[in-house]
Protein backbone atom coordinates (compact mmCIF):
# COMPACT_ATOMS: atom_id res chain seq x y z
CA UNK A 1 0.00 0.00 0.00
CA UNK A 2 2.85 2.34 0.92
CA UNK A 3 4.56 1.65 -2.41
CA UNK A 4 1.34 2.40 -4.30
CA UNK A 5 0.91 5.67 -2.42
CA UNK A 6 4.47 6.70 -3.24
CA UNK A 7 3.90 5.90 -6.89
CA UNK A 8 0.65 7.83 -6.93
CA UNK A 9 2.36 10.84 -5.34
CA UNK A 10 5.12 10.68 -7.94
CA UNK A 11 2.56 10.63 -10.74
CA UNK A 12 0.67 13.57 -9.22
CA UNK A 13 3.90 15.52 -8.81
CA UNK A 14 4.78 14.77 -12.41
CA UNK A 15 1.37 15.92 -13.59
CA UNK A 16 1.40 19.17 -11.61
CA UNK A 17 5.09 20.04 -11.94
CA UNK A 18 5.71 23.50 -13.44
CA UNK A 19 5.22 23.05 -17.18
CA UNK A 20 8.24 25.17 -18.19
CA UNK A 21 7.71 25.69 -21.90
CA UNK A 22 6.59 22.14 -22.47
CA UNK A 23 4.58 20.97 -25.40
CA UNK A 24 1.44 18.96 -25.73
CA UNK A 25 0.77 16.68 -28.66
CA UNK A 26 -1.65 13.88 -29.29
CA UNK A 27 -3.68 11.74 -31.62
CA UNK A 28 -7.27 10.63 -31.81
CA UNK A 29 -7.87 7.39 -33.70
CA UNK A 30 -11.36 6.30 -34.68
CA UNK A 31 -11.93 3.06 -36.52
CA UNK A 32 -13.91 -0.11 -37.01
CA UNK A 33 -13.08 -3.69 -37.86
CA UNK A 34 -13.31 -7.29 -36.78
CA UNK A 35 -12.22 -8.72 -33.44
CA UNK A 36 -11.66 -12.38 -32.57
CA UNK A 37 -10.82 -12.76 -28.88
CA UNK A 38 -9.62 -15.95 -27.26
CA UNK A 39 -12.46 -17.86 -25.57
CA UNK A 40 -15.15 -15.41 -26.66
CA UNK A 41 -17.43 -14.69 -29.59
CA UNK A 42 -15.87 -12.85 -32.54
CA UNK A 43 -17.60 -9.96 -34.24
CA UNK A 44 -17.46 -6.42 -35.47
CA UNK A 45 -16.10 -3.69 -33.23
CA UNK A 46 -15.70 0.08 -33.23
CA UNK A 47 -12.92 1.81 -31.31
CA UNK A 48 -11.97 5.32 -30.20
CA UNK A 49 -8.35 5.81 -29.11
CA UNK A 50 -7.31 9.18 -27.66
CA UNK A 51 -3.61 9.57 -26.81
CA UNK A 52 -1.75 12.54 -25.34
CA UNK A 53 1.91 13.24 -24.80
CA UNK A 54 3.30 16.15 -22.82
CA UNK A 55 6.99 16.95 -22.57
CA UNK A 56 8.80 19.58 -20.53
CA UNK A 57 12.56 19.31 -20.23
CA UNK A 58 13.49 15.86 -18.97
CA UNK A 59 9.88 15.04 -18.09
CA UNK A 60 7.44 13.20 -20.32
CA UNK A 61 3.83 12.34 -19.56
CA UNK A 62 1.72 9.96 -21.62
CA UNK A 63 -1.95 9.13 -21.40
CA UNK A 64 -3.85 6.66 -23.54
CA UNK A 65 -7.40 5.34 -23.61
CA UNK A 66 -9.03 2.72 -25.81
CA UNK A 67 -12.80 2.41 -25.83
CA UNK A 68 -14.19 -0.45 -27.93
CA UNK A 69 -17.85 -1.11 -28.52
CA UNK A 70 -19.07 -4.49 -29.71
CA UNK A 71 -22.60 -5.59 -30.67
CA UNK A 72 -25.14 -6.34 -27.91
CA UNK A 73 -23.81 -3.50 -25.79
CA UNK A 74 -20.59 -5.24 -24.78
CA UNK A 75 -17.92 -2.61 -24.29
CA UNK A 76 -14.37 -2.61 -22.97
CA UNK A 77 -12.06 0.19 -21.94
CA UNK A 78 -8.32 0.14 -21.42
CA UNK A 79 -6.54 3.22 -20.10
CA UNK A 80 -3.12 4.13 -18.89
CA UNK A 81 -0.96 7.01 -17.75
CA UNK A 82 2.79 7.06 -17.65
CA UNK A 83 5.35 9.54 -16.29
CA UNK A 84 8.97 9.35 -17.41
CA UNK A 85 11.84 11.40 -16.03
CA UNK A 86 15.14 11.37 -17.91
CA UNK A 87 18.33 12.79 -16.55
CA UNK A 88 20.95 14.24 -18.90
CA UNK A 89 23.45 11.76 -20.24
CA UNK A 90 25.78 10.51 -17.53
CA UNK A 91 28.87 9.59 -19.48
CA UNK A 92 27.60 7.30 -22.20
CA UNK A 93 24.52 6.34 -20.17
CA UNK A 94 21.09 7.93 -20.12
CA UNK A 95 19.05 7.04 -17.06
CA UNK A 96 15.26 7.00 -17.09
CA UNK A 97 12.77 6.43 -14.27
CA UNK A 98 9.14 5.78 -15.01
CA UNK A 99 5.87 5.16 -13.23
CA UNK A 100 2.80 3.73 -14.86
CA UNK A 101 -0.85 3.22 -13.90
CA UNK A 102 -3.11 1.11 -16.12
CA UNK A 103 -6.65 -0.05 -15.74
CA UNK A 104 -9.45 -1.80 -17.60
CA UNK A 105 -13.23 -1.52 -17.34
CA UNK A 106 -15.75 -3.86 -18.90
CA UNK A 107 -19.46 -4.23 -19.42
CA UNK A 108 -20.90 -5.92 -16.29
CA UNK A 109 -17.52 -7.38 -15.30
CA UNK A 110 -15.03 -6.09 -12.75
CA UNK A 111 -11.95 -4.58 -14.35
CA UNK A 112 -8.28 -4.69 -13.49
CA UNK A 113 -5.66 -2.22 -12.25
CA UNK A 114 -1.87 -2.28 -12.49
CA UNK A 115 0.63 0.07 -10.87
CA UNK A 116 4.28 -0.27 -11.78
CA UNK A 117 7.50 1.67 -11.66
CA UNK A 118 11.01 1.06 -12.82
CA UNK A 119 14.31 2.32 -14.13
CA UNK A 120 16.05 1.97 -17.46
CA UNK A 121 19.61 2.67 -18.52
CA UNK A 122 20.30 3.49 -22.17
CA UNK A 123 23.50 3.91 -24.01
CA UNK A 124 23.41 7.51 -25.25
CA UNK A 125 26.30 7.87 -27.60
CA UNK A 126 24.29 9.85 -30.13
CA UNK A 127 24.88 7.16 -32.72
CA UNK A 128 22.23 5.31 -34.70
CA UNK A 129 22.42 2.29 -32.44
CA UNK A 130 21.56 2.05 -28.78
CA UNK A 131 20.98 -0.58 -26.14
CA UNK A 132 19.10 -0.57 -22.87
CA UNK A 133 18.43 -2.63 -19.80
CA UNK A 134 15.54 -2.11 -17.40
CA UNK A 135 13.89 -3.42 -14.27
CA UNK A 136 10.25 -2.89 -13.28
CA UNK A 137 8.30 -3.71 -10.12
CA UNK A 138 4.59 -3.42 -9.63
CA UNK A 139 1.32 -4.84 -8.45
CA UNK A 140 -1.80 -5.77 -10.37
CA UNK A 141 -5.30 -6.35 -9.09
CA UNK A 142 -7.40 -8.72 -11.15
CA UNK A 143 -10.16 -11.23 -10.45
CA UNK A 144 -10.29 -10.09 -6.82
CA UNK A 145 -6.63 -10.85 -6.06
CA UNK A 146 -3.44 -8.81 -5.84
CA UNK A 147 -0.57 -9.96 -7.98
CA UNK A 148 3.02 -8.74 -7.46
CA UNK A 149 4.98 -8.54 -10.67
CA UNK A 150 8.60 -8.12 -11.67
CA UNK A 151 9.92 -7.54 -15.14
CA UNK A 152 13.47 -7.46 -16.48
CA UNK A 153 14.11 -6.34 -20.02
CA UNK A 154 17.02 -5.87 -22.34
CA UNK A 155 16.82 -4.40 -25.79
CA UNK A 156 18.55 -2.66 -28.61
CA UNK A 157 17.66 -0.55 -31.59
CA UNK A 158 19.34 0.67 -34.74
CA UNK A 159 18.62 2.88 -37.72
CA UNK A 160 19.35 0.98 -40.93
CA UNK A 161 18.96 3.55 -43.64
CA UNK A 162 15.50 4.93 -42.92
CA UNK A 163 14.26 1.83 -41.11
CA UNK A 164 14.23 1.90 -37.33
CA UNK A 165 14.62 -1.62 -35.95
CA UNK A 166 14.26 -2.58 -32.30
CA UNK A 167 14.55 -5.84 -30.39
CA UNK A 168 13.27 -6.42 -26.86
CA UNK A 169 13.60 -9.41 -24.59
CA UNK A 170 11.34 -9.09 -21.54
CA UNK A 171 11.09 -11.59 -18.72
CA UNK A 172 7.99 -11.22 -16.55
CA UNK A 173 7.29 -12.96 -13.27
CA UNK A 174 3.91 -12.64 -11.57
CA UNK A 175 2.56 -14.32 -8.44
CA UNK A 176 -1.06 -15.35 -8.87
CA UNK A 177 -2.87 -16.46 -5.72
CA UNK A 178 -6.01 -18.58 -5.47
CA UNK A 179 -7.92 -20.46 -2.80
CA UNK A 180 -7.30 -24.18 -2.91
CA UNK A 181 -10.34 -26.09 -1.76
CA UNK A 182 -10.60 -29.84 -1.20
CA UNK A 183 -11.06 -31.65 -4.45
CA UNK A 184 -9.45 -28.88 -6.50
CA UNK A 185 -7.96 -30.51 -9.60
CA UNK A 186 -4.81 -28.44 -9.17
CA UNK A 187 -4.04 -30.26 -5.92
CA UNK A 188 -1.83 -33.32 -6.51
CA UNK A 189 -3.31 -36.56 -5.19
CA UNK A 190 -0.17 -38.53 -4.69
CA UNK A 191 -0.57 -40.15 -1.32
CA UNK A 192 -3.06 -41.06 1.29
CA UNK A 193 -2.90 -37.75 3.11
CA UNK A 194 -3.52 -35.82 -0.07
CA UNK A 195 -6.46 -38.05 -0.87
CA UNK A 196 -8.07 -37.05 2.42
CA UNK A 197 -7.31 -33.34 2.74
CA UNK A 198 -8.17 -31.08 5.60
CA UNK A 199 -11.64 -29.64 5.10
CA UNK A 200 -10.39 -26.00 5.21
CA UNK A 201 -9.47 -23.99 2.11
CA UNK A 202 -5.85 -22.85 1.66
CA UNK A 203 -4.41 -19.84 -0.05
CA UNK A 204 -1.98 -20.99 -2.73
CA UNK A 205 0.34 -18.97 -4.93
CA UNK A 206 1.34 -19.84 -8.47
CA UNK A 207 4.47 -18.17 -9.78
CA UNK A 208 4.12 -17.60 -13.49
CA UNK A 209 7.23 -16.78 -15.52
CA UNK A 210 7.38 -15.99 -19.20
CA UNK A 211 9.70 -14.33 -21.68
CA UNK A 212 8.56 -12.27 -24.65
CA UNK A 213 10.96 -11.71 -27.53
CA UNK A 214 9.76 -9.00 -29.92
CA UNK A 215 11.34 -7.62 -33.07
CA UNK A 216 9.79 -4.40 -34.40
CA UNK A 217 10.44 -2.12 -37.32
CA UNK A 218 9.31 1.33 -38.35
CA UNK A 219 9.71 2.80 -41.82
CA UNK A 220 8.64 6.07 -43.38
CA UNK A 221 8.21 6.14 -47.16
CA UNK A 222 6.88 9.33 -48.74
CA UNK A 223 3.57 9.98 -46.97
CA UNK A 224 3.26 6.40 -45.63
CA UNK A 225 4.31 5.16 -42.19
CA UNK A 226 4.76 1.43 -41.72
CA UNK A 227 4.98 -0.26 -38.32
CA UNK A 228 5.48 -3.98 -37.97
CA UNK A 229 6.30 -6.26 -35.07
CA UNK A 230 6.59 -9.98 -34.55
CA UNK A 231 7.27 -11.78 -31.33
CA UNK A 232 7.15 -15.08 -29.54
CA UNK A 233 6.28 -15.89 -25.97
CA UNK A 234 8.30 -18.55 -24.17
CA UNK A 235 6.83 -20.02 -20.99
CA UNK A 236 6.57 -23.32 -19.16
CA UNK A 237 3.23 -22.42 -17.66
CA UNK A 238 1.36 -20.75 -20.53
CA UNK A 239 0.97 -21.84 -24.13
CA UNK A 240 3.71 -20.44 -26.31
CA UNK A 241 2.22 -17.86 -28.62
CA UNK A 242 3.28 -15.97 -31.68
CA UNK A 243 2.21 -12.31 -31.51
CA UNK A 244 2.39 -9.87 -34.38
CA UNK A 245 1.11 -6.54 -35.51
CA UNK A 246 1.15 -4.51 -38.69
CA UNK A 247 -0.10 -0.98 -39.22
CA UNK A 248 0.07 1.48 -42.08
CA UNK A 249 -0.87 5.13 -42.01
CA UNK A 250 -1.01 7.60 -44.84
CA UNK A 251 -1.07 11.33 -44.34
CA UNK A 252 -4.13 12.91 -45.97
CA UNK A 253 -3.43 16.36 -44.52
CA UNK A 254 -1.03 17.76 -41.92
CA UNK A 255 -3.46 16.84 -39.14
CA UNK A 256 -5.30 13.89 -40.68
CA UNK A 257 -4.18 10.38 -41.62
CA UNK A 258 -5.77 7.16 -42.78
CA UNK A 259 -4.82 4.20 -40.57
CA UNK A 260 -5.08 0.45 -41.13
CA UNK A 261 -4.00 -2.21 -38.66
CA UNK A 262 -4.05 -5.96 -38.15
CA UNK A 263 -2.48 -8.25 -35.64
CA UNK A 264 -2.61 -10.83 -32.94
CA UNK A 265 -2.30 -9.44 -29.43
CA UNK A 266 -1.05 -11.79 -26.76
CA UNK A 267 -2.92 -12.33 -23.52
CA UNK A 268 -1.70 -10.41 -20.49
CA UNK A 269 -0.57 -12.90 -17.84
CA UNK A 270 -0.45 -10.17 -15.23
CA UNK A 271 -4.12 -9.22 -15.44
CA UNK A 272 -5.46 -12.35 -17.19
CA UNK A 273 -7.10 -10.34 -19.97
CA UNK A 274 -7.24 -12.55 -23.05
CA UNK A 275 -5.48 -12.03 -26.34
CA UNK A 276 -7.22 -11.46 -29.65
CA UNK A 277 -6.82 -11.18 -33.40
CA UNK A 278 -8.03 -8.00 -35.04
CA UNK A 279 -8.28 -6.10 -38.31
CA UNK A 280 -9.30 -2.43 -38.34
CA UNK A 281 -9.28 0.70 -40.46
CA UNK A 282 -9.89 4.25 -39.37
CA UNK A 283 -8.85 7.88 -39.27
CA UNK A 284 -6.25 9.59 -37.12
CA UNK A 285 -6.50 13.21 -36.07
CA UNK A 286 -3.22 14.77 -35.00
CA UNK A 287 -3.18 17.42 -32.31
CA UNK A 288 -0.22 19.71 -31.73
CA UNK A 289 3.31 19.15 -32.95
CA UNK A 290 4.17 15.43 -32.85
CA UNK A 291 7.83 16.22 -32.23
CA UNK A 292 8.25 17.46 -28.70
CA UNK A 293 10.04 20.74 -28.27
CA UNK A 294 11.23 21.76 -24.85
CA UNK A 295 14.05 23.44 -23.07
CA UNK A 296 16.54 20.82 -21.94
CA UNK A 297 19.56 21.98 -20.01
CA UNK A 298 22.31 23.50 -22.11
CA UNK A 299 24.43 20.62 -23.43
CA UNK A 300 27.68 20.12 -21.59
CA UNK A 301 30.87 18.76 -23.06
CA UNK A 302 30.72 15.01 -22.84
CA UNK A 303 34.23 13.80 -22.15
CA UNK A 304 33.34 10.21 -22.92
CA UNK A 305 31.76 10.82 -26.35
CA UNK A 306 33.41 8.72 -29.07
CA UNK A 307 33.82 11.81 -31.27
CA UNK A 308 33.87 15.43 -30.22
CA UNK A 309 34.97 18.85 -31.43
CA UNK A 310 35.81 21.19 -28.60
CA UNK A 311 35.35 24.95 -28.27
CA UNK A 312 37.49 27.30 -30.35
CA UNK A 313 40.78 28.43 -28.78
CA UNK A 314 43.74 30.27 -30.28
CA UNK A 315 45.28 27.12 -31.73
CA UNK A 316 42.01 25.86 -33.18
CA UNK A 317 39.54 23.29 -31.92
CA UNK A 318 40.44 20.07 -30.20
CA UNK A 319 39.11 17.09 -32.16
CA UNK A 320 39.08 13.73 -30.40
CA UNK A 321 38.17 10.36 -31.91
CA UNK A 322 37.86 7.23 -29.81
CA UNK A 323 39.15 4.19 -31.68
CA UNK A 324 40.06 1.15 -29.66
CA UNK A 325 42.89 -1.06 -30.95
CA UNK A 326 43.68 1.33 -33.81
CA UNK A 327 47.21 1.87 -35.07
CA UNK A 328 46.49 4.99 -37.13
CA UNK A 329 43.53 7.36 -37.32
CA UNK A 330 43.10 9.98 -40.05
CA UNK A 331 40.51 12.72 -40.39
CA UNK A 332 39.43 14.62 -43.50
CA UNK A 333 36.70 17.17 -44.02
CA UNK A 334 35.76 20.39 -45.69
CA UNK A 335 37.83 22.23 -43.05
CA UNK A 336 40.99 20.40 -44.21
CA UNK A 337 40.12 20.71 -47.92
CA UNK A 338 39.58 16.96 -47.65
CA UNK A 339 43.28 16.37 -47.11
CA UNK A 340 43.80 13.55 -44.61
CA UNK A 341 45.20 14.72 -41.28
CA UNK A 342 46.86 12.10 -39.08
CA UNK A 343 45.68 12.24 -35.46
CA UNK A 344 47.98 11.70 -32.48
CA UNK A 345 47.40 8.99 -29.94
CA UNK A 346 45.90 10.45 -26.78
CA UNK A 347 45.34 8.13 -23.84
CA UNK A 348 44.54 4.45 -24.09
CA UNK A 349 42.01 4.45 -26.92
CA UNK A 350 41.65 8.03 -28.15
CA UNK A 351 43.24 10.08 -30.93
CA UNK A 352 43.50 13.86 -31.04
CA UNK A 353 44.43 16.86 -33.14
CA UNK A 354 43.95 20.63 -33.19
CA UNK A 355 42.44 22.20 -36.31
CA UNK A 356 40.73 25.47 -37.16
CA UNK A 357 37.03 24.72 -37.65
CA UNK A 358 34.56 27.55 -38.16
CA UNK A 359 31.07 27.38 -36.63
CA UNK A 360 28.46 25.96 -38.96
CA UNK A 361 27.70 22.83 -40.91
CA UNK A 362 30.62 20.59 -41.88
CA UNK A 363 31.15 17.29 -43.69
CA UNK A 364 33.91 14.99 -42.55
CA UNK A 365 35.05 11.38 -42.37
CA UNK A 366 37.66 9.31 -40.55
CA UNK A 367 39.81 6.43 -41.71
CA UNK A 368 41.18 3.87 -39.29
CA UNK A 369 44.28 1.84 -40.12
CA UNK A 370 44.01 2.73 -43.80
CA UNK A 371 40.54 1.21 -44.18
CA UNK A 372 37.43 2.78 -45.69
CA UNK A 373 36.54 6.40 -45.01
CA UNK A 374 33.49 6.48 -42.77
CA UNK A 375 31.54 8.70 -40.40
CA UNK A 376 33.28 9.06 -37.02
CA UNK A 377 31.85 6.88 -34.24
CA UNK A 378 28.94 8.50 -32.45
CA UNK A 379 27.89 10.73 -35.36
CA UNK A 380 24.98 10.27 -37.73
CA UNK A 381 26.29 8.89 -41.01
CA UNK A 382 24.97 10.25 -44.30
CA UNK A 383 25.34 8.53 -47.63
CA UNK A 384 27.99 10.12 -49.80
CA UNK A 385 27.41 10.47 -53.54
CA UNK A 386 30.77 8.79 -53.93
CA UNK A 387 29.85 5.64 -52.03
CA UNK A 388 30.40 4.97 -48.36
CA UNK A 389 29.31 7.26 -45.57
CA UNK A 390 30.50 10.56 -44.16
CA UNK A 391 29.17 12.69 -41.30
CA UNK A 392 27.46 16.07 -41.35
CA UNK A 393 27.88 17.88 -38.07
CA UNK A 394 26.94 21.27 -36.71
CA UNK A 395 29.79 23.02 -34.93
CA UNK A 396 28.56 25.59 -32.43
Amino acid sequence: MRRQSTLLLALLWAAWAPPALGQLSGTLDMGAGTYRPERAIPGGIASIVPALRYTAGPLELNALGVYSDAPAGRWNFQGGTEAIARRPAFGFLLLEASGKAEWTSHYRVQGTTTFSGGVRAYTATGSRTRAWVGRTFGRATALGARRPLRRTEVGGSAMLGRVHLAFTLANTTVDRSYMLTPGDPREPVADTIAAYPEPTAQNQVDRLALTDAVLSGRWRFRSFDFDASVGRRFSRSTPETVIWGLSVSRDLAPTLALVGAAGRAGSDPVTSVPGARYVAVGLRLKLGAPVAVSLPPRPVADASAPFRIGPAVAAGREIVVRATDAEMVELAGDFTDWKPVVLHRWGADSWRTLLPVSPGLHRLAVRIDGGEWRAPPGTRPVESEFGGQVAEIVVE
Partner: protein
Amino acid sequence: MPFVRWLALAALLALPAASQAQDTRLTERLDAATATRVQQVVDSAQAGGLPGEPLVQKALEGATLGASDDRIVAAVQSLHGQLRRAREALGGGASDPELTAAAGALRAGLEPSALRRLQSLRPDQPLVVPIAVLTDLVAEGVPPADATRSVLDLARDGRPDDEFVALRRQLQQRGAGGEPMGRPALRPAADPPVDQ
Protein backbone atom coordinates in the same frame (compact mmCIF):
# COMPACT_ATOMS: atom_id res chain seq x y z
CA MET B 1 55.27 46.05 -85.44
CA PRO B 2 55.23 47.71 -82.03
CA PHE B 3 51.56 46.82 -81.88
CA VAL B 4 52.38 43.12 -82.41
CA ARG B 5 55.02 43.28 -79.68
CA TRP B 6 52.58 44.80 -77.26
CA LEU B 7 50.06 42.14 -78.16
CA ALA B 8 52.58 39.37 -77.57
CA LEU B 9 53.56 40.91 -74.23
CA ALA B 10 49.94 41.19 -73.19
CA ALA B 11 49.39 37.53 -74.14
CA LEU B 12 52.40 36.46 -72.05
CA LEU B 13 51.10 38.41 -69.06
CA ALA B 14 47.59 37.01 -69.48
CA LEU B 15 48.80 33.38 -69.52
CA PRO B 16 49.72 33.18 -65.84
CA ALA B 17 46.52 35.04 -64.97
CA ALA B 18 44.45 32.42 -66.78
CA SER B 19 46.20 29.58 -65.01
CA GLN B 20 45.69 31.36 -61.66
CA ALA B 21 41.95 31.39 -62.34
CA GLN B 22 41.97 27.61 -61.99
CA ASP B 23 41.73 26.61 -58.33
CA THR B 24 45.08 25.04 -57.42
CA ARG B 25 43.39 22.69 -54.98
CA LEU B 26 41.59 21.14 -57.93
CA THR B 27 44.65 20.85 -60.12
CA GLU B 28 46.62 19.28 -57.27
CA ARG B 29 44.06 16.58 -56.53
CA LEU B 30 42.36 15.89 -59.87
CA ASP B 31 43.66 15.17 -63.32
CA ALA B 32 43.83 18.16 -65.65
CA ALA B 33 40.70 17.35 -67.67
CA THR B 34 38.54 16.72 -64.59
CA ALA B 35 39.86 19.82 -62.85
CA THR B 36 38.93 21.87 -65.90
CA ARG B 37 35.42 20.43 -66.05
CA VAL B 38 34.88 21.10 -62.35
CA GLN B 39 36.30 24.59 -62.71
CA GLN B 40 33.80 25.31 -65.49
CA VAL B 41 30.95 24.42 -63.14
CA VAL B 42 32.47 26.56 -60.39
CA ASP B 43 32.86 29.51 -62.76
CA SER B 44 29.31 29.11 -63.98
CA ALA B 45 28.03 29.07 -60.40
CA GLN B 46 29.99 32.16 -59.42
CA ALA B 47 28.80 33.99 -62.53
CA GLY B 48 25.25 33.28 -61.36
CA GLY B 49 25.95 34.63 -57.88
CA LEU B 50 26.30 31.21 -56.24
CA PRO B 51 29.17 30.18 -53.97
CA GLY B 52 31.95 28.20 -55.63
CA GLU B 53 33.57 26.87 -52.48
CA PRO B 54 31.01 24.11 -51.77
CA LEU B 55 31.51 22.86 -55.33
CA VAL B 56 35.27 22.77 -54.88
CA GLN B 57 34.84 20.95 -51.57
CA LYS B 58 32.52 18.43 -53.23
CA ALA B 59 35.15 17.66 -55.84
CA LEU B 60 37.86 17.34 -53.20
CA GLU B 61 35.62 15.03 -51.18
CA GLY B 62 35.22 12.83 -54.22
CA ALA B 63 38.96 12.77 -54.74
CA THR B 64 39.61 11.74 -51.14
CA LEU B 65 36.92 9.04 -51.25
CA GLY B 66 38.44 7.65 -54.44
CA ALA B 67 35.54 8.39 -56.78
CA SER B 68 35.87 8.21 -60.56
CA ASP B 69 36.32 11.42 -62.54
CA ASP B 70 32.87 11.24 -64.13
CA ARG B 71 31.24 10.68 -60.76
CA ILE B 72 33.02 13.69 -59.31
CA VAL B 73 31.87 15.94 -62.14
CA ALA B 74 28.31 14.61 -61.90
CA ALA B 75 28.21 15.24 -58.13
CA VAL B 76 29.50 18.78 -58.60
CA GLN B 77 26.91 19.47 -61.31
CA SER B 78 24.16 18.05 -59.10
CA LEU B 79 25.22 20.27 -56.19
CA HIS B 80 25.24 23.26 -58.54
CA GLY B 81 21.57 22.58 -59.31
CA GLN B 82 20.74 22.25 -55.62
CA LEU B 83 22.48 25.53 -54.83
CA ARG B 84 20.47 27.21 -57.56
CA ARG B 85 17.24 25.89 -56.07
CA ALA B 86 18.39 27.00 -52.64
CA ARG B 87 19.03 30.50 -53.98
CA GLU B 88 15.54 30.54 -55.48
CA ALA B 89 14.11 29.56 -52.11
CA LEU B 90 16.12 31.92 -49.89
CA GLY B 91 16.68 34.82 -52.24
CA GLY B 92 19.73 36.94 -52.90
CA GLY B 93 20.36 37.88 -49.28
CA ALA B 94 21.30 34.38 -48.16
CA SER B 95 24.90 33.78 -47.12
CA ASP B 96 27.07 31.10 -48.70
CA PRO B 97 26.88 28.77 -45.63
CA GLU B 98 23.09 29.19 -45.61
CA LEU B 99 22.88 28.28 -49.29
CA THR B 100 25.06 25.22 -48.68
CA ALA B 101 22.88 24.10 -45.77
CA ALA B 102 19.71 24.78 -47.76
CA ALA B 103 20.99 22.72 -50.68
CA GLY B 104 21.40 19.78 -48.28
CA ALA B 105 17.88 20.31 -46.96
CA LEU B 106 16.37 20.23 -50.44
CA ARG B 107 18.36 17.10 -51.23
CA ALA B 108 16.88 15.48 -48.09
CA GLY B 109 13.37 16.08 -49.43
CA LEU B 110 12.32 19.28 -47.70
CA GLU B 111 10.10 21.75 -49.54
CA PRO B 112 11.50 25.17 -50.53
CA SER B 113 8.46 26.72 -48.83
CA ALA B 114 9.71 25.38 -45.47
CA LEU B 115 13.01 27.21 -45.97
CA ARG B 116 11.23 30.42 -46.97
CA ARG B 117 9.02 30.22 -43.87
CA LEU B 118 12.04 29.65 -41.65
CA GLN B 119 13.77 32.64 -43.19
CA SER B 120 10.73 34.84 -42.59
CA LEU B 121 10.69 33.81 -38.91
CA ARG B 122 14.42 34.52 -38.39
CA PRO B 123 15.01 37.54 -40.61
CA ASP B 124 18.04 38.86 -38.72
CA GLN B 125 19.67 35.64 -37.56
CA PRO B 126 21.73 33.02 -39.35
CA LEU B 127 19.77 30.06 -40.67
CA VAL B 128 22.58 27.52 -40.91
CA VAL B 129 21.92 25.70 -37.64
CA PRO B 130 18.10 25.55 -37.93
CA ILE B 131 18.37 24.28 -41.50
CA ALA B 132 21.00 21.70 -40.54
CA VAL B 133 18.87 20.47 -37.63
CA LEU B 134 15.80 20.30 -39.87
CA THR B 135 17.74 18.23 -42.39
CA ASP B 136 19.03 16.01 -39.64
CA LEU B 137 15.56 15.33 -38.23
CA VAL B 138 14.24 14.31 -41.64
CA ALA B 139 17.25 12.06 -42.18
CA GLU B 140 16.53 10.46 -38.81
CA GLY B 141 13.09 9.42 -40.08
CA VAL B 142 10.94 12.23 -38.66
CA PRO B 143 8.24 13.08 -41.24
CA PRO B 144 9.21 16.32 -43.02
CA ALA B 145 5.95 18.04 -42.05
CA ASP B 146 6.48 17.22 -38.37
CA ALA B 147 10.14 18.20 -38.37
CA THR B 148 9.36 21.47 -40.12
CA ARG B 149 6.65 22.28 -37.63
CA SER B 150 8.92 21.71 -34.64
CA VAL B 151 11.78 23.77 -36.04
CA LEU B 152 9.43 26.58 -37.06
CA ASP B 153 7.95 26.59 -33.55
CA LEU B 154 11.41 27.26 -32.12
CA ALA B 155 12.13 29.89 -34.75
CA ARG B 156 8.84 31.64 -34.08
CA ASP B 157 9.74 31.90 -30.38
CA GLY B 158 13.10 33.44 -31.26
CA ARG B 159 15.12 30.63 -29.66
CA PRO B 160 18.93 30.63 -30.02
CA ASP B 161 20.89 28.12 -32.09
CA ASP B 162 21.83 25.85 -29.18
CA GLU B 163 18.17 25.07 -28.57
CA PHE B 164 17.84 23.77 -32.11
CA VAL B 165 20.84 21.53 -31.45
CA ALA B 166 19.24 20.46 -28.16
CA LEU B 167 16.06 19.53 -30.00
CA ARG B 168 18.01 17.21 -32.27
CA ARG B 169 19.82 15.65 -29.32
CA GLN B 170 16.54 15.15 -27.51
CA LEU B 171 15.09 13.30 -30.46
CA GLN B 172 18.15 11.12 -30.81
CA GLN B 173 17.82 10.12 -27.18
CA ARG B 174 14.15 9.40 -27.54
CA GLY B 175 14.55 7.14 -30.55
CA ALA B 176 12.26 7.04 -33.51
CA GLY B 177 9.04 7.72 -31.65
CA GLY B 178 6.20 5.30 -32.31
CA GLU B 179 2.74 4.78 -30.96
CA PRO B 180 1.98 6.23 -27.53
CA MET B 181 3.05 3.85 -24.76
CA GLY B 182 4.13 1.35 -27.36
CA ARG B 183 0.58 0.31 -28.21
CA PRO B 184 -0.15 -0.74 -31.80
CA ALA B 185 -2.51 1.51 -33.75
CA LEU B 186 -6.25 0.75 -33.52
CA ARG B 187 -5.81 -2.38 -31.41
CA PRO B 188 -9.19 -2.78 -29.68
CA ALA B 189 -9.51 -2.80 -25.91
CA ALA B 190 -9.14 -6.26 -24.42
CA ASP B 191 -12.02 -8.39 -23.19
CA PRO B 192 -12.56 -8.92 -19.44
CA PRO B 193 -10.03 -11.04 -17.54
CA VAL B 194 -10.51 -14.79 -17.62
CA ASP B 195 -9.70 -17.06 -14.69
CA GLN B 196 -7.38 -19.73 -16.05
